[in-house]
Protein backbone atom coordinates (compact mmCIF):
# COMPACT_ATOMS: atom_id res chain seq x y z
CA UNK A 1 0.00 0.00 0.00
CA UNK A 2 1.35 3.39 -0.95
CA UNK A 3 2.20 5.82 1.82
CA UNK A 4 -0.57 8.42 2.11
CA UNK A 5 0.40 11.86 0.91
CA UNK A 6 -0.81 15.17 2.26
CA UNK A 7 -3.66 16.79 0.37
CA UNK A 8 -2.49 19.07 -2.40
CA UNK A 9 -4.32 22.20 -3.47
CA UNK A 10 -5.26 22.74 -7.10
CA UNK A 11 -5.15 26.29 -8.43
CA UNK A 12 -7.89 28.02 -10.37
CA UNK A 13 -7.30 30.96 -12.68
CA UNK A 14 -8.27 33.30 -9.83
CA UNK A 15 -5.79 31.77 -7.36
CA UNK A 16 -2.93 30.90 -9.74
CA UNK A 17 -0.84 34.00 -8.82
CA UNK A 18 -0.97 32.99 -5.14
CA UNK A 19 0.43 29.53 -5.92
CA UNK A 20 2.91 30.87 -8.48
CA UNK A 21 4.31 33.07 -5.69
CA UNK A 22 4.50 30.28 -3.13
CA UNK A 23 6.39 28.20 -5.71
CA UNK A 24 9.06 30.94 -5.54
CA UNK A 25 8.98 30.90 -1.73
CA UNK A 26 7.00 34.13 -1.52
CA UNK A 27 3.64 35.03 -0.03
CA UNK A 28 1.55 37.33 -2.22
CA UNK A 29 -1.90 38.73 -1.55
CA UNK A 30 -4.22 40.99 -3.43
CA UNK A 31 -4.71 44.60 -2.39
CA UNK A 32 -7.61 46.84 -3.34
CA UNK A 33 -6.21 50.21 -4.38
CA UNK A 34 -9.33 52.32 -3.61
CA UNK A 35 -9.65 50.71 -0.15
CA UNK A 36 -5.88 50.43 0.34
CA UNK A 37 -6.57 47.09 2.00
CA UNK A 38 -5.45 43.52 1.45
CA UNK A 39 -8.02 40.73 1.20
CA UNK A 40 -8.17 36.95 1.04
CA UNK A 41 -9.03 34.43 -0.38
CA UNK A 42 -8.19 35.54 -3.92
CA UNK A 43 -10.81 36.87 -6.30
CA UNK A 44 -10.61 39.37 -9.15
CA UNK A 45 -12.52 42.09 -7.31
CA UNK A 46 -12.50 43.68 -3.87
CA UNK A 47 -15.00 42.00 -1.57
CA UNK A 48 -15.59 45.30 0.23
CA UNK A 49 -16.12 47.80 -2.60
CA UNK A 50 -16.31 45.51 -5.66
CA UNK A 51 -13.61 47.53 -7.41
CA UNK A 52 -11.57 45.61 -9.96
CA UNK A 53 -8.66 47.99 -9.36
CA UNK A 54 -6.78 45.33 -7.42
CA UNK A 55 -3.18 44.12 -7.53
CA UNK A 56 -1.13 41.11 -6.46
CA UNK A 57 1.66 42.21 -4.14
CA UNK A 58 4.24 40.51 -1.93
CA UNK A 59 3.42 40.73 1.76
CA UNK A 60 5.63 40.51 4.83
CA UNK A 61 4.94 36.89 5.69
CA UNK A 62 4.73 37.94 9.33
CA UNK A 63 1.68 37.51 11.50
CA UNK A 64 0.30 36.47 14.85
CA UNK A 65 -1.29 33.31 16.17
CA UNK A 66 -4.98 34.20 16.20
CA UNK A 67 -6.45 30.84 17.25
CA UNK A 68 -5.88 27.12 16.67
CA UNK A 69 -6.79 23.52 17.36
CA UNK A 70 -4.34 20.66 17.93
CA UNK A 71 -5.58 17.77 15.84
CA UNK A 72 -5.11 14.33 17.39
CA UNK A 73 -6.68 12.30 14.57
CA UNK A 74 -4.41 12.89 11.60
CA UNK A 75 -5.50 13.50 8.03
CA UNK A 76 -3.90 11.26 5.37
CA UNK A 77 -0.23 12.19 5.06
CA UNK A 78 -0.10 13.80 8.50
CA UNK A 79 0.24 10.54 10.47
CA UNK A 80 3.86 11.06 11.51
CA UNK A 81 3.36 14.57 12.88
CA UNK A 82 0.15 14.03 14.87
CA UNK A 83 -0.89 15.69 17.03
CA UNK A 84 -0.37 18.84 15.00
CA UNK A 85 -1.65 22.41 15.22
CA UNK A 86 -4.05 23.85 12.65
CA UNK A 87 -4.13 27.59 13.17
CA UNK A 88 -5.52 30.83 11.91
CA UNK A 89 -2.72 33.31 11.41
CA UNK A 90 -3.56 37.00 11.33
CA UNK A 91 -1.13 38.56 8.88
CA UNK A 92 0.36 41.99 9.55
CA UNK A 93 -1.54 43.14 6.47
CA UNK A 94 -4.87 42.10 7.99
CA UNK A 95 -6.21 38.94 6.33
CA UNK A 96 -6.27 35.63 8.19
CA UNK A 97 -4.94 32.39 6.70
CA UNK A 98 -5.35 28.84 7.88
CA UNK A 99 -1.97 27.12 8.25
CA UNK A 100 -0.06 24.58 10.31
CA UNK A 101 2.35 25.84 12.95
CA UNK A 102 5.72 24.13 12.51
CA UNK A 103 9.04 24.12 14.38
CA UNK A 104 7.19 24.38 17.70
CA UNK A 105 5.92 21.71 20.10
CA UNK A 106 2.25 20.87 19.51
CA UNK A 107 1.41 21.82 23.07
CA UNK A 108 -0.82 24.59 24.42
CA UNK A 109 2.01 26.01 26.55
CA UNK A 110 4.17 26.45 23.46
CA UNK A 111 1.39 27.93 21.34
CA UNK A 112 0.36 31.18 22.99
CA UNK A 113 -2.28 33.26 21.26
CA UNK A 114 -0.91 36.39 19.58
CA UNK A 115 2.67 35.05 19.52
CA UNK A 116 4.59 36.32 16.47
CA UNK A 117 4.96 33.97 13.50
CA UNK A 118 6.64 33.98 10.11
CA UNK A 119 5.84 32.10 6.93
CA UNK A 120 7.72 29.13 5.54
CA UNK A 121 6.67 26.64 2.88
CA UNK A 122 6.33 22.87 2.51
CA UNK A 123 5.92 20.81 -0.64
CA UNK A 124 2.61 18.97 -0.79
CA UNK A 125 2.14 17.14 -4.07
CA UNK A 126 4.27 19.64 -5.98
CA UNK A 127 2.51 22.68 -4.50
CA UNK A 128 4.27 24.90 -1.96
CA UNK A 129 1.84 25.22 0.94
CA UNK A 130 2.35 28.04 3.46
CA UNK A 131 3.20 27.07 7.05
CA UNK A 132 4.11 29.34 9.93
CA UNK A 133 6.84 29.07 12.60
CA UNK A 134 7.57 31.09 15.73
CA UNK A 135 9.37 34.36 15.02
CA UNK A 136 11.24 36.95 17.05
CA UNK A 137 9.08 39.96 17.92
CA UNK A 138 9.56 42.75 15.37
CA UNK A 139 10.74 46.23 16.28
CA UNK A 140 7.69 48.39 16.78
CA UNK A 141 5.30 45.47 16.47
CA UNK A 142 2.04 45.85 18.35
Amino acid at each position, binding site marked *: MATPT*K*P*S*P*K*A*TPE*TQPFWDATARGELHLQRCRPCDAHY*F*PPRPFCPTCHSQDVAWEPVSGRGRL*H*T*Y*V*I*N*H*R*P*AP*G*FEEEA*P*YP*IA*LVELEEGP*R*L*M*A*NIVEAPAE*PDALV*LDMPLEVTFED*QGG*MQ*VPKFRPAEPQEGAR
Partner: protein
Amino acid sequence: MTMPSTAIIGAAETDELGTLPDRSELQLHAEAARNTLEDAKLAPADIDGIACAGQSPIAVAHYLGIEPAWIDGTGVGGASFMFHVRHAAGAIAAGLCSTVLITHGQSGRSRLGPAGGGRGRDSLPGQFETPHGIVGPPTLFPMGVLRYMKETGTTHEQLASVAVAQRRWAARNPRAKYRDEITVDDVFASPMIAYPMHKLECCLVTDGGGALILTSSDRAEEMDLPHPPVHLLGAGEAMETPMVSQMEDVTSSKAFRRSSAAAFAQAGITPDDVDHLMIYDAFAHLPIYGLEDLGFVGRGEAGAFIEEGHTSPGGRLPLNTNGGGLSYTHTGMYGMFALQESVRQLRGTAPAQVDGVEISVAQGVGGMFMSGGTVVLGRERR
Protein backbone atom coordinates in the same frame (compact mmCIF):
# COMPACT_ATOMS: atom_id res chain seq x y z
CA MET B 1 -42.63 41.69 7.64
CA THR B 2 -45.89 40.03 8.64
CA MET B 3 -47.48 37.00 7.09
CA PRO B 4 -50.38 34.70 7.92
CA SER B 5 -49.57 32.30 10.72
CA THR B 6 -48.41 28.85 9.73
CA ALA B 7 -48.66 25.67 11.78
CA ILE B 8 -46.81 22.38 12.05
CA ILE B 9 -49.47 19.64 11.97
CA GLY B 10 -47.27 16.58 11.56
CA ALA B 11 -43.90 15.74 13.06
CA ALA B 12 -42.19 12.39 13.43
CA GLU B 13 -38.80 10.77 13.15
CA THR B 14 -37.65 7.50 11.64
CA ASP B 15 -38.62 4.30 13.46
CA GLU B 16 -35.12 3.93 14.82
CA LEU B 17 -32.07 6.11 15.29
CA GLY B 18 -28.53 4.89 15.70
CA THR B 19 -26.82 2.49 13.35
CA LEU B 20 -29.13 1.51 10.51
CA PRO B 21 -27.17 -0.56 8.00
CA ASP B 22 -30.30 -1.69 6.20
CA ARG B 23 -31.62 1.65 5.04
CA SER B 24 -30.33 3.97 2.39
CA GLU B 25 -30.42 7.68 2.92
CA LEU B 26 -33.34 7.99 0.52
CA GLN B 27 -35.18 5.38 2.51
CA LEU B 28 -34.61 7.31 5.73
CA HIS B 29 -36.29 10.29 4.04
CA ALA B 30 -39.21 8.11 3.01
CA GLU B 31 -39.61 6.46 6.40
CA ALA B 32 -39.62 9.80 8.16
CA ALA B 33 -42.14 11.11 5.63
CA ARG B 34 -44.45 8.16 5.99
CA ASN B 35 -44.37 8.31 9.79
CA THR B 36 -45.12 12.02 9.61
CA LEU B 37 -48.03 11.52 7.25
CA GLU B 38 -49.36 8.92 9.71
CA ASP B 39 -48.80 11.33 12.61
CA ALA B 40 -51.05 13.89 10.89
CA LYS B 41 -53.41 11.28 9.43
CA LEU B 42 -52.75 12.65 5.96
CA ALA B 43 -52.19 10.86 2.64
CA PRO B 44 -49.39 11.56 0.15
CA ALA B 45 -51.99 13.12 -2.13
CA ASP B 46 -52.64 15.77 0.53
CA ILE B 47 -49.06 17.03 0.13
CA ASP B 48 -48.45 19.65 -2.55
CA GLY B 49 -45.13 21.04 -1.40
CA ILE B 50 -41.86 19.33 -0.53
CA ALA B 51 -38.51 20.41 0.84
CA CYS B 52 -35.40 18.52 1.80
CA ALA B 53 -31.63 18.86 1.91
CA GLY B 54 -28.82 16.54 0.92
CA GLN B 55 -30.87 14.33 -1.34
CA SER B 56 -32.76 15.99 -4.19
CA PRO B 57 -36.36 16.87 -3.28
CA ILE B 58 -37.33 15.62 -6.72
CA ALA B 59 -35.85 12.19 -5.96
CA VAL B 60 -37.62 12.10 -2.59
CA ALA B 61 -40.98 13.22 -4.02
CA HIS B 62 -40.80 10.72 -6.86
CA TYR B 63 -39.85 7.96 -4.44
CA LEU B 64 -42.88 8.83 -2.32
CA GLY B 65 -45.25 9.22 -5.25
CA ILE B 66 -45.89 12.87 -4.45
CA GLU B 67 -46.39 15.39 -7.24
CA PRO B 68 -45.63 18.68 -5.54
CA ALA B 69 -46.47 22.12 -6.85
CA TRP B 70 -43.70 23.67 -4.78
CA ILE B 71 -40.18 22.29 -4.32
CA ASP B 72 -37.38 23.61 -2.14
CA GLY B 73 -33.95 22.03 -2.23
CA THR B 74 -32.25 24.66 -0.13
CA GLY B 75 -29.13 22.93 1.12
CA VAL B 76 -27.24 25.14 3.50
CA GLY B 77 -26.05 22.49 5.93
CA GLY B 78 -27.65 21.34 9.12
CA ALA B 79 -29.78 24.46 9.43
CA SER B 80 -31.51 23.71 6.13
CA PHE B 81 -34.73 22.64 7.82
CA MET B 82 -35.08 25.95 9.62
CA PHE B 83 -34.80 27.58 6.20
CA HIS B 84 -37.33 25.12 4.78
CA VAL B 85 -39.81 26.00 7.54
CA ARG B 86 -39.49 29.69 6.75
CA HIS B 87 -39.70 29.15 2.99
CA ALA B 88 -42.72 26.90 3.37
CA ALA B 89 -44.48 29.51 5.50
CA GLY B 90 -43.93 32.07 2.78
CA ALA B 91 -45.01 29.68 0.06
CA ILE B 92 -48.20 28.77 1.91
CA ALA B 93 -48.97 32.41 2.66
CA ALA B 94 -48.39 33.24 -0.96
CA GLY B 95 -50.71 30.48 -2.08
CA LEU B 96 -47.97 28.57 -3.88
CA CYS B 97 -49.10 25.43 -2.10
CA SER B 98 -51.21 24.47 0.89
CA THR B 99 -49.45 21.61 2.67
CA VAL B 100 -45.67 21.17 2.71
CA LEU B 101 -43.69 18.07 3.68
CA ILE B 102 -40.14 18.72 4.89
CA THR B 103 -38.00 15.61 5.17
CA HIS B 104 -34.62 14.69 6.52
CA GLY B 105 -32.87 11.38 6.12
CA GLN B 106 -29.17 10.90 6.50
CA SER B 107 -27.03 7.83 6.72
CA GLY B 108 -24.46 9.75 8.69
CA ARG B 109 -22.97 6.67 10.30
CA SER B 110 -23.50 3.86 7.79
CA ARG B 111 -22.92 6.07 4.75
CA LEU B 112 -25.42 4.21 2.60
CA GLY B 113 -26.13 6.20 -0.53
CA PRO B 114 -25.25 9.57 0.93
CA ALA B 115 -25.47 12.70 -1.17
CA GLY B 116 -22.12 14.16 -2.23
CA GLY B 117 -20.45 17.20 -0.67
CA GLY B 118 -18.21 19.80 -2.27
CA ARG B 119 -14.72 20.47 -0.96
CA GLY B 120 -12.72 19.49 -4.04
CA ARG B 121 -9.03 20.28 -4.41
CA ASP B 122 -9.81 23.31 -6.52
CA SER B 123 -12.56 24.73 -4.30
CA LEU B 124 -11.51 27.56 -2.03
CA PRO B 125 -11.72 25.34 1.06
CA GLY B 126 -9.84 22.66 -0.89
CA GLN B 127 -7.01 25.08 -1.56
CA PHE B 128 -6.90 27.05 1.67
CA GLU B 129 -8.18 24.75 4.42
CA THR B 130 -7.93 21.07 3.43
CA PRO B 131 -4.14 21.06 2.79
CA HIS B 132 -3.53 21.86 6.46
CA GLY B 133 -4.62 18.42 7.57
CA ILE B 134 -8.22 19.07 8.51
CA VAL B 135 -10.32 16.06 9.38
CA GLY B 136 -13.90 17.17 9.08
CA PRO B 137 -15.82 19.35 11.50
CA PRO B 138 -13.78 18.54 14.66
CA THR B 139 -10.81 20.38 13.19
CA LEU B 140 -12.84 23.27 11.75
CA PHE B 141 -15.86 24.04 13.90
CA PRO B 142 -13.90 24.63 17.15
CA MET B 143 -11.31 26.83 15.43
CA GLY B 144 -12.40 29.95 17.29
CA VAL B 145 -12.78 28.39 20.73
CA LEU B 146 -9.33 29.25 22.11
CA ARG B 147 -9.73 32.82 20.89
CA TYR B 148 -13.16 32.99 22.52
CA MET B 149 -11.74 31.65 25.78
CA LYS B 150 -8.89 34.16 25.77
CA GLU B 151 -11.16 37.11 25.06
CA THR B 152 -13.89 36.19 27.54
CA GLY B 153 -12.04 34.29 30.29
CA THR B 154 -14.24 31.26 29.71
CA THR B 155 -12.63 28.13 31.20
CA HIS B 156 -12.15 24.57 30.00
CA GLU B 157 -14.40 23.51 32.89
CA GLN B 158 -17.19 25.75 31.62
CA LEU B 159 -16.82 24.36 28.10
CA ALA B 160 -17.04 20.82 29.51
CA SER B 161 -20.10 21.78 31.55
CA VAL B 162 -22.08 22.06 28.31
CA ALA B 163 -21.74 18.31 27.83
CA VAL B 164 -22.51 17.70 31.51
CA ALA B 165 -25.72 19.78 31.38
CA GLN B 166 -26.99 18.12 28.24
CA ARG B 167 -26.34 14.64 29.58
CA ARG B 168 -28.65 15.52 32.48
CA TRP B 169 -31.44 16.00 29.93
CA ALA B 170 -30.45 12.87 28.00
CA ALA B 171 -30.66 10.86 31.22
CA ARG B 172 -34.39 11.67 31.18
CA ASN B 173 -34.88 10.68 27.52
CA PRO B 174 -35.13 6.95 26.73
CA ARG B 175 -34.40 7.61 23.05
CA ALA B 176 -31.08 9.32 23.78
CA LYS B 177 -27.98 7.38 22.75
CA TYR B 178 -25.96 8.32 25.85
CA ARG B 179 -27.92 8.44 29.11
CA ASP B 180 -25.43 8.06 31.96
CA GLU B 181 -24.80 11.34 33.74
CA ILE B 182 -21.23 12.63 33.49
CA THR B 183 -18.95 15.07 35.29
CA VAL B 184 -16.48 17.66 34.06
CA ASP B 185 -13.71 15.20 34.98
CA ASP B 186 -15.34 12.55 32.76
CA VAL B 187 -15.22 15.03 29.89
CA PHE B 188 -11.54 15.76 30.55
CA ALA B 189 -10.82 12.03 30.73
CA SER B 190 -12.36 11.36 27.32
CA PRO B 191 -9.93 11.24 24.38
CA MET B 192 -8.66 14.51 22.98
CA ILE B 193 -10.06 14.89 19.46
CA ALA B 194 -8.80 18.34 18.51
CA TYR B 195 -7.58 20.43 21.42
CA PRO B 196 -9.41 22.03 23.18
CA MET B 197 -12.26 19.63 22.29
CA HIS B 198 -12.47 16.24 24.03
CA LYS B 199 -14.58 13.46 22.61
CA LEU B 200 -17.47 14.22 24.98
CA GLU B 201 -17.50 17.80 23.70
CA CYS B 202 -18.09 16.53 20.14
CA CYS B 203 -21.43 15.30 18.80
CA LEU B 204 -22.47 11.75 18.08
CA VAL B 205 -22.55 10.30 14.58
CA THR B 206 -25.78 8.38 13.99
CA ASP B 207 -28.38 7.41 11.43
CA GLY B 208 -31.94 8.62 11.63
CA GLY B 209 -34.45 11.09 10.30
CA GLY B 210 -37.42 13.28 11.02
CA ALA B 211 -40.08 15.15 9.11
CA LEU B 212 -42.63 17.92 9.59
CA ILE B 213 -45.91 18.82 7.93
CA LEU B 214 -47.06 22.43 7.80
CA THR B 215 -50.29 24.09 6.77
CA SER B 216 -51.94 27.43 7.53
CA SER B 217 -53.02 28.04 11.11
CA ASP B 218 -56.55 28.78 9.86
CA ARG B 219 -56.75 25.40 8.18
CA ALA B 220 -55.10 23.68 11.14
CA GLU B 221 -57.82 24.97 13.45
CA GLU B 222 -60.54 23.70 11.11
CA MET B 223 -58.96 20.26 10.80
CA ASP B 224 -59.71 17.32 13.06
CA LEU B 225 -56.11 16.72 14.11
CA PRO B 226 -54.75 14.21 16.61
CA HIS B 227 -52.42 16.83 18.12
CA PRO B 228 -52.82 20.52 18.87
CA PRO B 229 -51.13 22.56 16.17
CA VAL B 230 -47.83 24.25 16.93
CA HIS B 231 -47.77 27.69 15.37
CA LEU B 232 -44.85 29.36 13.63
CA LEU B 233 -44.45 32.78 15.22
CA GLY B 234 -41.32 33.90 13.41
CA ALA B 235 -38.32 32.69 11.48
CA GLY B 236 -35.06 34.04 10.18
CA GLU B 237 -32.22 32.88 7.99
CA ALA B 238 -28.74 34.19 7.46
CA MET B 239 -25.32 33.15 6.24
CA GLU B 240 -21.73 34.09 6.78
CA THR B 241 -18.97 32.17 4.99
CA PRO B 242 -18.40 28.60 3.82
CA MET B 243 -14.85 28.82 5.25
CA VAL B 244 -14.50 29.00 9.02
CA SER B 245 -11.07 30.53 8.47
CA GLN B 246 -12.78 33.56 6.94
CA MET B 247 -15.29 34.32 9.69
CA GLU B 248 -15.39 38.00 10.47
CA ASP B 249 -15.05 37.24 14.21
CA VAL B 250 -14.25 33.66 15.18
CA THR B 251 -15.70 34.21 18.66
CA SER B 252 -19.27 34.89 17.50
CA SER B 253 -21.58 33.71 14.74
CA LYS B 254 -22.86 36.45 12.50
CA ALA B 255 -25.36 33.99 11.06
CA PHE B 256 -26.73 33.27 14.55
CA ARG B 257 -27.00 36.96 15.33
CA ARG B 258 -28.79 37.86 12.12
CA SER B 259 -31.13 34.89 11.84
CA SER B 260 -32.26 35.19 15.44
CA ALA B 261 -32.77 38.94 15.20
CA ALA B 262 -35.02 38.46 12.16
CA ALA B 263 -36.97 35.64 13.80
CA PHE B 264 -37.47 37.45 17.10
CA ALA B 265 -38.56 40.62 15.30
CA GLN B 266 -41.10 38.74 13.20
CA ALA B 267 -42.43 36.96 16.28
CA GLY B 268 -42.48 40.19 18.27
CA ILE B 269 -40.59 38.60 21.15
CA THR B 270 -37.44 39.13 23.15
CA PRO B 271 -35.30 36.41 24.76
CA ASP B 272 -37.25 36.98 28.01
CA ASP B 273 -40.36 35.58 26.33
CA VAL B 274 -38.71 32.23 25.45
CA ASP B 275 -39.63 29.26 27.66
CA HIS B 276 -37.60 26.58 25.89
CA LEU B 277 -34.55 26.74 23.65
CA MET B 278 -32.81 24.43 21.24
CA ILE B 279 -29.35 25.42 19.98
CA TYR B 280 -27.77 23.08 17.45
CA ASP B 281 -24.87 21.55 19.35
CA ALA B 282 -22.46 19.90 16.98
CA PHE B 283 -19.80 20.81 19.56
CA ALA B 284 -19.89 22.08 23.11
CA HIS B 285 -19.10 25.66 22.16
CA LEU B 286 -22.20 26.10 20.00
CA PRO B 287 -24.65 26.54 22.89
CA ILE B 288 -22.18 29.03 24.38
CA TYR B 289 -21.99 31.05 21.17
CA GLY B 290 -25.75 30.67 20.68
CA LEU B 291 -26.76 31.91 24.12
CA GLU B 292 -24.73 35.07 23.52
CA ASP B 293 -25.48 35.59 19.84
CA LEU B 294 -29.24 35.16 20.37
CA GLY B 295 -29.15 37.63 23.24
CA PHE B 296 -30.01 35.34 26.16
CA VAL B 297 -26.87 36.36 28.06
CA GLY B 298 -24.18 39.00 27.66
CA ARG B 299 -20.79 38.61 26.04
CA GLY B 300 -18.63 36.08 27.88
CA GLU B 301 -21.40 35.05 30.28
CA ALA B 302 -22.63 31.84 28.63
CA GLY B 303 -20.06 29.46 30.09
CA ALA B 304 -20.84 30.45 33.66
CA PHE B 305 -24.58 30.45 32.90
CA ILE B 306 -24.43 26.81 31.81
CA GLU B 307 -21.97 25.80 34.53
CA GLU B 308 -24.30 27.24 37.18
CA GLY B 309 -27.11 24.96 35.96
CA HIS B 310 -29.46 27.54 34.44
CA THR B 311 -29.90 25.43 31.28
CA SER B 312 -30.12 22.08 33.12
CA PRO B 313 -33.31 20.35 34.34
CA GLY B 314 -34.95 22.71 36.83
CA GLY B 315 -33.02 25.71 35.47
CA ARG B 316 -34.67 28.87 34.24
CA LEU B 317 -33.79 28.38 30.56
CA PRO B 318 -34.23 24.70 29.55
CA LEU B 319 -31.78 24.15 26.67
CA ASN B 320 -31.36 21.15 24.37
CA THR B 321 -33.83 19.09 26.37
CA ASN B 322 -33.59 15.99 24.17
CA GLY B 323 -29.91 15.71 25.17
CA GLY B 324 -28.78 17.43 21.98
CA GLY B 325 -26.27 16.37 19.40
CA LEU B 326 -23.84 15.62 22.21
CA SER B 327 -26.05 12.94 23.83
CA TYR B 328 -29.32 12.33 21.91
CA THR B 329 -28.50 11.85 18.25
CA HIS B 330 -26.62 13.59 15.43
CA THR B 331 -27.00 12.33 11.88
CA GLY B 332 -24.83 15.07 10.38
CA MET B 333 -27.57 17.65 9.76
CA TYR B 334 -29.11 17.77 13.21
CA GLY B 335 -31.45 20.77 12.83
CA MET B 336 -34.48 18.56 12.22
CA PHE B 337 -34.10 17.01 15.66
CA ALA B 338 -33.99 20.42 17.32
CA LEU B 339 -37.29 21.27 15.63
CA GLN B 340 -38.81 17.91 16.63
CA GLU B 341 -37.96 18.57 20.28
CA SER B 342 -39.43 22.08 20.12
CA VAL B 343 -42.68 20.61 18.75
CA ARG B 344 -42.73 17.92 21.45
CA GLN B 345 -42.17 20.47 24.21
CA LEU B 346 -45.01 22.64 22.86
CA ARG B 347 -47.31 19.63 22.47
CA GLY B 348 -46.41 18.53 25.99
CA THR B 349 -45.17 15.15 24.81
CA ALA B 350 -41.39 15.42 25.36
CA PRO B 351 -39.71 12.65 27.38
CA ALA B 352 -38.12 15.34 29.54
CA GLN B 353 -41.13 17.65 29.46
CA VAL B 354 -40.71 21.18 30.76
CA ASP B 355 -43.73 22.73 32.48
CA GLY B 356 -45.60 25.55 30.81
CA VAL B 357 -43.76 25.87 27.50
CA GLU B 358 -45.62 28.52 25.50
CA ILE B 359 -42.78 29.65 23.23
CA SER B 360 -39.86 27.57 21.98
CA VAL B 361 -36.93 28.68 19.81
CA ALA B 362 -34.88 26.33 17.63
CA GLN B 363 -31.56 27.70 16.38
CA GLY B 364 -29.85 25.81 13.59
CA VAL B 365 -26.39 26.09 12.15
CA GLY B 366 -25.12 24.91 8.79
CA GLY B 367 -21.55 24.07 7.87
CA MET B 368 -19.01 25.58 10.23
CA PHE B 369 -21.03 28.69 11.08
CA MET B 370 -21.76 28.91 7.33
CA SER B 371 -25.47 29.45 7.86
CA GLY B 372 -27.96 30.03 10.64
CA GLY B 373 -31.69 29.45 10.76
CA THR B 374 -33.96 30.41 13.64
CA VAL B 375 -37.53 29.21 14.16
CA VAL B 376 -39.82 30.59 16.88
CA LEU B 377 -42.76 28.29 17.67
CA GLY B 378 -45.70 28.78 20.02
CA ARG B 379 -48.82 27.14 21.39
CA GLU B 380 -50.90 30.20 20.58
CA ARG B 381 -50.95 31.72 17.10
CA ARG B 382 -49.98 35.31 16.59
